[in-house]
């Protein structure tokens, strides 16, 4: 049976429900402006939201929807912890930090908390992880859960992989490798792209032409394919020195991503250099360094910061994809992208053992959670910096 009539039917039903809702609202509230001037689209939106909520509740009670329940429980739990975290921030600390926490939305404290947890895990991975990331144990494919009756082992709460490495330890070390490398790469991309972009905007002329066209050429090649190509060449150069390959990867991704930063920095810079205060600084006889770092950069923080959040996530995903494809972070080092690839077959067991199938999703979820958290924090910082001084 075709799906399209069903979709049409649902949309029509929702539309009708929205219309009835608006009409009822008008009758009950005696034509209050909220209902009187409500466009049909908004009423439809309310009906859609109500429908989605009902659908969610129905799904919650389905026996096969374990993942859905876990995801909801996880989000709710983290939100509660974030709320407590914010309460704590309001109670302790200096006057400044307390004020910061008082004005902070829950999403931002959620983001900060998640980033803090990741940072602690990454920095103290050696102390927190029960085993080493390269340690191989005799028992392979121990099931997660830590219950001996279902094939688990309390020493390995998340079980072991096909060659007997502890998955919990590798997940924790993955934070160190993946997040650390992504952070370094993003910083490098911003240093490179930002400086060149502002330089092009300030000097213009032939330098701008040369840089911009070079960036156009780099951007014309699909970035993942380009990265793959360069990584293949780099792995030939690196030979058996695995750490050297990681350095190459950082440089390659930084250069590719710096083209996006360049574009943004140049566009933002062009809007700023036409301002009279830049002209005043030029006429004062200020040097290029002062112009870029003292006059232009402070006015470009907001868009650059937003881009940093997004770019960090993209870099992070690129590293994970390269690792997933086998040319990124190399085997003895734990990495979430590699983990998703190595454990991907377990997804087949979803119907029999949801816990086992959750393993690849755990690494993917770690990536997703950090992406969301970083963007929450960046949104909040943007909101703060774009406003007036407070």
């Amino acid at each position, binding site marked *: 049976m075709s799906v399209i009539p069903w979709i049409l039917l649902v949309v029509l039903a929702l539309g009708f429900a929205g219309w009835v809702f608006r009409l009822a609202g008008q009758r009950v509230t005696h034509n209050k*402006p909220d209902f*009187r*001037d409500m466009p049909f689209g908004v009423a439809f939106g309310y009906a859609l939201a109500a429908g989605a909520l009902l659908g969610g509740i129905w799904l919650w009670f389905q026996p096969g929807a374990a993942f859905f329940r876990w995801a909801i429980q996880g989000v709710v739990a983290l939100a509660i912890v974030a709320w407590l975290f914010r309460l704590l921030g309001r109670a302790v600390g200096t006057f400044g930090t307390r004020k910061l926490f008082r004005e902070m939305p829950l999403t931002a404290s959620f983001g900060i908390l998640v980033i803090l947890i990741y940072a602690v895990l990454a920095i103290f991975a050696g102390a927190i992880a029960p085993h080493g990331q390269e340690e191989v144990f005799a028992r392979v494919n121990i099931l997660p859960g830590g219950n001996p009756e279902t094939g688990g082992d309390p020493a390995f709460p998340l079980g072991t992989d096909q060659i007997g490495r502890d998955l919990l330890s590798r997940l924790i070390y993955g934070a160190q490798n993946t997040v650390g490398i992504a952070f370094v790469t993003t910083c490098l991309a911003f240093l490179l792209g930002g400086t060149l972009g502002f330089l092009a905007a300030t000097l213009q002329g032939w330098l701008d032409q040369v840089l911009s066209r070079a960036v156009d050429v780099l951007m014309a090649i699909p970035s993942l394919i380009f990265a793959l190509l360069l990584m293949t060449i780099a792995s030939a150069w690196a030979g058996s020195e695995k750490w050297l390959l990681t350095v190459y990867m950082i440089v390659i991704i930084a250069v590719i991503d710096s083209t996006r930063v360049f574009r943004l920095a140049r566009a933002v810079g062009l809007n700023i250099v036409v*301002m*009279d*205060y830049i*002209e*005043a600084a*030029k*006429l*004062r*006889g*200020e040097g290029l360094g002062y112009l870029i770092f003292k*006059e232009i950069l*402070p*006015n470009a*923080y907001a868009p650059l910061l937003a881009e940093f959040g997004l770019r960090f996530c993209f870099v992070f995903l690129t590293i994970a994809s390269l690792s997933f494809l086998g040319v990124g972070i190399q085997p003895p080092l734990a990495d979430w992208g590699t983990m998703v690839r190595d454990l991907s077959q377990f997804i087949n067991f979803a119907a029999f053992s949801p816990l086992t199938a959750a393993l690849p999703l755990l690494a993917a979820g770690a990536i997703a959670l950090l992406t969301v958290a970083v963007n929450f924090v960046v949104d909040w910082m943007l909101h703060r910096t774009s406003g*007036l*001084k407070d």
Partner: protein
Amino acid sequence: MTDLLLKIRGLKIEGRADEMWQPIINGVDLDLHKGEVLGLIGESGAGKSTIGLAGMGFTRDGVRISSGSVEFDGIDLVKASAETKRKLRGTRIAYVAQSAAASFNPAHKLIDQHTEAPVQHGVMSRGEGAADAVDLYRRLRLPNPEEIGFRYPHQVSGGQLQRAMTAMAMSCRPDLIIFDEPTTALDVTTQIEVLAAIRDIVEQFDTAAIYITHDLAVVAQMADRIKVLLQGDEVEEAETREMLSHPKEDYTKSLWAVREFKRPQKPAVDSGAVPVVSVRKVTAAYGPVKVLRNVSFDIHEGRTVAVVGESGSGKSTAARCITGLLPPLAGSIMVDGVEMPADYRKRSKDQLRQVQMIYQMADTALNPRKTIGEIIGRPVQFYMGLRGRDRRRRVEQLLDEIELPADQYFDRLPSELSGGQKQRIGIARALAAEPRFIICDEVTSALDQLVAEGILKLLARLQDELKLSYMFITHDLATVRSIADEVVVMKEGQVIEQGPKDEMFRPPHHAYTDLLLSSVPEMDPDWLTNLLAERGVDNVGDAAVDKMG
């Protein structure tokens, strides 16, 4: 009278700032009869635009009508549904915005935008609307009325665009039009033709209008009655002639008196004196287009030279040549008899220090991310080499000079200052370099009249104390009258006439100077009528300039 069209009673409007609702309008009453023109006048922040928009039952985002009523022809727009208001707007109430260039959609032809409202409201078909548009263009005396509608907004001049916008507002023959500063952004000669056109068409169709402006002389030509506003309160209201001849309140009197600040003419300079700045036969161009042709003038120590002309006359370009931002093709710039390198990059630090600039828009002239202390402190450190406590003391001294209390303003950001205060910071930054010569580029044109007068007085005092020379670029002849010692009139990149102020304002003038002078609106309500009678309806504005060219 019973033909009351718009009746506003006890209107209170609030705006949301710092998470709180703060009053913008504190209970204003307003009556407007059919076919009557009411002038709303006040400084920025007086709430004139807010009241104008409320006349359509509209508020900007973050603003709400908290109490009161706005009755248009018996319908209370405060309580009316969005649907009712939509039906009224465009058909019975129309709006003409300050900047026509920003209000037209640049991607559509004028006539398509013109016919949109009548077609939407089902008043006319597309064809009828287009024919009507041509008729309106003709009545508003636009050149080539048959053809002009098929141009895009960027293809017509500012004054024409403003008239096209008035035609658009007329498209459904509304009962009420709200004009929000329609001529503020225009040159004086262009302003006249727009004023004449608006006044004519409003009379022809017997349309009621609310005319919002901060220019007293303009409102005197347009309005039957004038209402003066100050910070959301009504100061007084009276018939135009009554208001002009016998203002009751002190505030109104102070507004009327602003135009009377005038410095005495200084004695002529010794013929042997070396001018501080001398522009010698400068020719300059942007690309292939020549914008300055053989321009020469001198500026002596302690004197102010006003450079006047319409937009595009090359007055700002002359400033760019003096500062070295635009190296001239021919000619030279001398400071104290020494020729300066044409390009500012080749000038020494001391040469750069001699010539400072104050900009028109203080908003874009001050870095929004730096505190006042940093903005003024930078040239102090850069040129004078002062650091730490010495630097701070010098900045405080400069803040003192511009009459701002140093302890309050040192750590503030520009966004926390009013327009006049920002302009003062711009002056302090120029003074920090201890220059001999300052270029003032339309420094008062973005300010209210009372504030502008304060700035002019400050500049005059600083000139006397520090023996500064000013080049004063302006299109406002009232400013010239009050501060200049000598006047240079420019048109199309050439100096038309120059000389001491007193001579320049006394006939005989060059024909163009005469046109400029006679185009400045005067407070006399009959001024426009008399001028049109004298020059002929088709001989004002661009037409007159063209005939001369």
